[in-house]
């Protein structure tokens, strides 16, 4: 659904911007892992595409609010960073396939890098509500780019932090720390949100431990609602065939081992409908 929400609060969280927006309909339908798409630039803007942002939090005040956490990358996020309380924001959501939750009270490791961590906190809440054990591995380039360390510490059994410059926690990447966390916590499942390269490595680790891994991917999106076909990546289906599927509609959450990370940005020769591919006749 589309909502013209009012910005309630804006704040800086370390290197990130956080916006809380009143958006009752979206908050109500929300599940952890959902994202929204935000119109940027105001009236008469030259920016025609929306920006996809994960929902970091929903609250019930004012009929329902959503919180977005983002980093300034280009013109659209720069505009968003200038929003102030009482400005209006045009959101479409909740979008995408949320994180599937385990039926049983299992042990889960939640792995987040940079702003990717933001989407994991409501997931952690949902897991805790089901009696799961939650452990966090959060990382970033430097201390101020590790999002949510404090909150993680309050919620989780353990929280492991990594930074590439060593300014906070272990020096290195989240995937450097992950194996020992999985081993120590006897984890049954991994959830991750991070850049594609990191998700690939997280998936490799989880597969090594032979435990399921759910990853939330990020692909350039023009519509966010499944109609433009710009956000595709190669994913293996239940039938074993690779298809170019939409990150916005079939994702952004996928089972890690199903995503052909090494082929992202290409059309694998054996994908359904690949040019000249024998796979043409699979369907």
């Amino acid at each position, binding site marked *: 659904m589309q909502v013209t929400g009012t910005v309630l609060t804006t704040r800086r969280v370390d290197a990130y911007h956080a916006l809380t927006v009143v958006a009752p309909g979206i908050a109500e339908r929300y599940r952890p892992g959902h994202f929204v798409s935000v119109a940027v630039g105001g009236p008469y803007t030259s920016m025609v595409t929306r920006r996809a942002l994960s929902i970091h939090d929903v609250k019930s005040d004012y009929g329902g609010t959503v919180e977005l956490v983002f980093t300034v990358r280009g013109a659209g996020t720069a505009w968003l960073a200038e929003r102030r309380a009482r400005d209006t924001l045009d959101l479409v959501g909740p979008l995408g396939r949320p994180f599937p939750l385990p039926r049983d009270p299992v042990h889960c490791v939640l792995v987040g890098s940079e702003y990717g961590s933001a989407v994991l906190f409501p997931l952690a809440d949902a897991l805790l509500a089901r009696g799961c054990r939650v452990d966090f591995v959060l990382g970033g380039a430097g201390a101020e780019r590790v999002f949510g360390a404090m909150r993680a510490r309050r919620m989780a059994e353990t929280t492991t932090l990594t930074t590439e410059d060593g300014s906070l926690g272990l020096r290195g990447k989240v995937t450097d720390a992950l194996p020992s966390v999985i081993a120590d916590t006897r984890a049954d499942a991994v959830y991750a949100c991070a850049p594609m390269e990191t998700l690939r490595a997280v998936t490799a680790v989880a597969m090594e431990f032979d435990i399921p891994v759910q990853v939330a991917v990020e*692909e350039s999106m*023009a519509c966010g*609602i499944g109609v433009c076909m*710009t956000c595709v990546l190669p994913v293996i289906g239940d039938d074993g065939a690779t298809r170019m599927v939409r990150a916005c509609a079939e994702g952004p959450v996928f089972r890690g081992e199903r995503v052909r990370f090494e082929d992202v940005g290409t059309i694998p020769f054996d994908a359904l409908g*690949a040019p000249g591919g024998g796979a043409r006749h699979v369907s």
Partner: protein
Amino acid sequence: MSVDMRTFLAHVELANPITTAAGCASSGRELAQFFDLHRLGALTTRSITMAPRAGRPTPRMAETPSGMLNAVGLQGPGIEAFLERELPWLAQRGIKTIVSIGGGTVAEYSELARRLADAPGVTALEVNLSCPNMEDRGRVFAREGSAAAEVIASVRSIMRYDVPVVAKLAPDVADIVSVARACVDAGADALSMINNPLGMAIDTEALRPSLAAVTGGLSGPAILPLAVRCVWQVHAALPGVPLIGVGGVMTGRDAFQLVLAGACAVGVGTALFHDPYACLRIERELEELLRARGFQRLADAVGLAHRPPGSAPRHLLVDTEESTP
């Protein structure tokens, strides 16, 4: 007083002039989550190809000033799956459906037409001529009147007489009227214009083309002036031919420009990416603009801007002030 928004694509009546643009509404189901598809004048499908197609590698899109580039490469399930899963879903619900087809040879377009000839639920057939012609070194059909005409003639001969064949034209030509004329002479019942002009963006960080496919189709408000011009020129030359105006329509006012230039129906593409309800909003805004200007029927506005200077706009019963666009 409500405005009569009905329009005709050849002999086929549509309840209103607004349709989705080909390739911008996927299978239709995605938009159905947002609104009742029956409220569209028609739904235009993505361009269906013979074989399933995985499309082009990513990145497939880049934003440009008031526009975007796309290089999707006609990703889709192929005609088989379309006939099995997508068309029946639309047909069962009685949604007016313009089926778009794309091919690499005249034979492929013809085969697609054959497969669709007896399928229930095809309101009209739109022939996407912006596909590379494999038999002419990949030159796009729409850029060569005679190649375009050959496709249309063959498709027209195959489709049932009561299913209009719409030729979809591209603006990247020296003379759109001559391509339009060639298609009409070959039997096209209507024309749709414009498909995306070819554009390109370069990523100034990576120092490479922004799109994996290097070039891509430009869409969005940036191209509205090109669409208005093409519709105008073709309507002036072929006033009897129904035109679907497409290109950069974001508001009812944009749609109204195309109508005044000569379009009897209007396709909405990129706007859907920004606003899933765009078609409904645009229809409402267009009706409001017509009403405010005293039009009782959409049909009276079609091509009206062509009337010679000085002649009175006879359909204007009231001339009300308009607020900020």
